[in-house]
């Protein structure tokens, strides 16, 4: 673990990650010039998964509080798009949806984050069900329908909106990793009692962390809703969306920022590939890959990369002496 807090010096190692990310984002932003529309649609989906996995890892990664609430905020985002999409431009809908998600997460956090461990997880799981049924009831009672149409938006615009969200969440994740707030989150994960007794306001840190990890999910939900033209509570609040970031973060490794990024990208790409190439065996192969990842890659894909890198460096050192 690298906290970087005690050393003020700037060095190449420190500038490299944000610099590289910026370069990657710029290159990505040029993508629509070179690739087909179909590819852009696929890439939108991959990037949205990256955002969701990075978001999830901001809170659940360091604290170990496994949240299954992603589908709740994603679904709220989809509804924001369905309700506001005809009146407001997509970026604004995303901002509103993001802020609404943040506030709702604050409220939920205050209620649930006194729950420790598995109780928190179960509550977040229940939250998705609760929202689905609540919205179904509201729709039937007040609008008399089951579902809604979502105004479609040009997918290039969706691409740039999602890319912007990605830039924001990466920046936030990076800043948190380097901040005292990030250290507090890690402290809570390592020992919540010790953290509380050295002056960390654990409730505040947890509630804020949970909210920060929720807003971009709401924003992305709003953007991604525009590619389907119809939603109902069952489509919007799909539990699979809650499991995805957990699996992706485990797959990629969640103690570093690249972990969930790589996990989500590889995972989303694999899913895409398997669904189109071998639809009958998709779930079986997918499940097998997950089991192998959990059993043999305790720190995910980035864990092996780190190990290989260390070994090479170690070998180099030995050669010099």
């Amino acid at each position, binding site marked *: *673990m690298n*906290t970087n*807090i*005690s050393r*003020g010096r700037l060095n190449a190692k420190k500038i490299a990650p944000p610099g590289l990310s910026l370069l990657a984002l710029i290159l990505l932003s040029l993508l629509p010039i070179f690739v087909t529309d179909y590819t852009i649609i696929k890439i939108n989906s991959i990037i949205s998964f990256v955002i969701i996995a990075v978001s999830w890892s901001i809170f659940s990664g360091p604290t170990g509080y496994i949240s299954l609430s992603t589908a709740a905020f994603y679904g709220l985002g989809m509804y924001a798009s369905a309700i506001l999409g005809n009146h407001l431009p997509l970026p604004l809908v995303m901002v509103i949806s993001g802020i609404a998600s943040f506030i709702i997460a604050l409220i939920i956090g205050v209620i649930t984050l006194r729950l420790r461990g598995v109780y928190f997880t179960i509550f977040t799981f229940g939250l998705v069900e609760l929202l689905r049924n609540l919205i179904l009831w509201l729709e039937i009672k007040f609008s008399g329908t089951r579902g809604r149409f979502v105004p479609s938006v040009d997918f290039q615009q969706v691409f740039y909106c999602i890319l912007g969200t990605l830039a924001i969440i990466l920046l936030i994740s990076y800043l948190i990793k380097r901040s*005292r707030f990030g*250290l*507090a989150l*890690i*402290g809570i994960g*390592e*020992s919540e*009692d*010790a*953290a*509380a*007794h*050295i*002056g*960390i*306001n*654990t*409730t505040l840190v947890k509630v804020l962390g949970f909210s920060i990890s929720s807003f971009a999910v709401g924003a992305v939900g709003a953007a991604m809703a525009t590619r389907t033209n119809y939603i109902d509570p069952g489509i919007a609040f799909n539990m699979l969306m809650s499991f995805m970031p957990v699996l992706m973060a485990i797959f990629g490794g969640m103690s570093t920022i690249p972990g969930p990024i790589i996990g989500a990208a590889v995972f989303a790409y694999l899913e895409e590939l398997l669904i189109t190439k071998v639809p009958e065996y998709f779930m079986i192969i997918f499940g097998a890959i997950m089991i192998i990842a959990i059993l043999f890659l305790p720190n995910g894909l980035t864990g092996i990369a780190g190990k290989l890198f260390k070994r090479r460096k170690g070998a180099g050192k030995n050669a010099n002496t």
Partner: protein
Amino acid sequence: MPILNATGVSKAFGGLKAVSQVDFHVAEGEILGLIGPNGAGKSTLFNLISGAIPLDSGTIMFDGVKISGKKPDKICRLGIGRTFQTAQNFAGMSLRQNVLMGALFGKKGQSATQAAADVDEILDFVGLTELCDKQVSDIPLAYQKRLEVARALATKPRLLMLDEMMAGLNPTEVAEAMELVEKIRNSGITVIMIEHVMKAIMSICDRIIVLHHGQKIADGTPQEVSSMGTVIEVYLGQ
């Protein structure tokens, strides 16, 4: 004026009265020993003082401020540090980072440079400088307990509560721990310690409180306490 004053402190778990109607005070600058048989309520009393669990009734005043009802982080920042009976450390961090956590969060507005300087000083004070880059999981128990003390000291407490820091240590380590406790007191910090190691308690404490079934049954100097009939009966003579 006492630095800590507790009146009518009670806590029950279901039907079990873990701490019941306990009154006591801690004088500034003293080493107060807290003893009693297993399950007497000693750790629970620490938990009530530090805010780890809420009390059922009673009041605890620290330095003129009512701390009962406050959260552990607030109580820490008011100047009470503690260790736990089973060491609670940040296992994935190095020793230095553990202590740094205490220095960074223990007081409001602590700068990162100041915190780093404090950490060096404290590591040296408790004798962990050489091990400071090791992971918590790589050091023996005696050092893990000392690390907890270091982390608590990093929050700059005025009152330090040590829960069985000598349990499981060999005689040399116990002697070192005793030396450390006296050093801490000499640096101006008031100490309350829970301990089963009688030799240590009797020789370094200024005063001793005895708990039994959640009640305070004795309160006095080591000589007074060790000569009381009831204490010998429930504890020393067993």
